[in-house]
């Protein structure tokens, strides 16, 4: 494990693994308000876009739901999207994240809100980066086998449909 903490910043950034980045920050607000800021589209639009105009095209906050935000900055338009994998109210959101500018580079984001019981909330954002190369590696190993098993099942199904 390597740690790269930059001083002078309010957030703590560490790199627990080669492809993993953990960002921690304490907010001076109760957990309920931090949760709402992350899940109420009207509030989200006010901070997520770095001050640029943010259009929330989709925000289906439930497992499997799709989200898509489009940021309009002076330099251009940036689209971000993904799907929710876990939504545990007040506590945890796990979602995929992709930027239109880097297609195929998926980031798995886990957001955790910890109630510090003194009116403050610790936010831990963990991001796991998947690259095209890693995905290709996965295809060569277990997934290929999984795929051929699926095909065998499909073959059997087709056979019964004759």
């Amino acid at each position, binding site marked *: 494990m390597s740690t790269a903490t930059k001083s002078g910043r309010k957030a703590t*950034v560490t790199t627990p693994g080669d492809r993993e980045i953990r960002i921690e920050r304490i*907010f001076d607000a109760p957990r309920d*308000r931090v949760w709402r800021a992350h899940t109420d589209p009207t509030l989200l639009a006010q901070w*997520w876009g770095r001050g640029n105009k943010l259009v929330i095209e989709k925000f289906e906050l439930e497992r499997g739901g799709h989200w898509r935000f489009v940021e309009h*900055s002076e330099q251009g338009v940036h689209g971000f999207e993904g799907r929710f994998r876990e939504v545990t109210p007040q506590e945890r959101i796990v979602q995929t994240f992709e930027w239109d500018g*880097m297609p195929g580079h998926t980031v798995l984001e886990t957001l955790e809100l910890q109630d510090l019981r003194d009116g403050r909330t610790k936010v831990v954002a963990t991001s796991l980066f998947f690259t095209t190369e890693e995905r290709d590696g996965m295809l060569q190993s277990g997934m290929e086998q999984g795929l051929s098993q699926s095909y065998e099942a499909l073959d059997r199904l087709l056979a019964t449909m004759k």
Partner: protein
Amino acid sequence: MVQYSAHLDRAFAAVSDPIRRGILGRLGHGDASISDLASSFDMTLTGMKKHVRILEEAGLVTTEKVGRVRTCRLGRERLAPEAAWMRSYVEMVEARFNRLERLLERTKGETS
């Protein structure tokens, strides 16, 4: 803050183009002149200069002109395209958290 955002926009713009990611990858193997790069990527000199300038403005590449040849090399941090993207991502999350903090301050005491 506006400054921060402009810097991020430059970093995003720099890594969003497949040719520019290719240039970073190519420079990872060694320095190259603009004309080397132009021929590697089958582009005009003018087109390549534009890409290199965008990478230079984002701090990912530095260039040096000796005589009539401009040599390009990776910036001080020698970031590969993937690492450049990861860095932009972290800066984006941090900038976002700064804004979240201000929103939470602004809305203090408000009820839903």
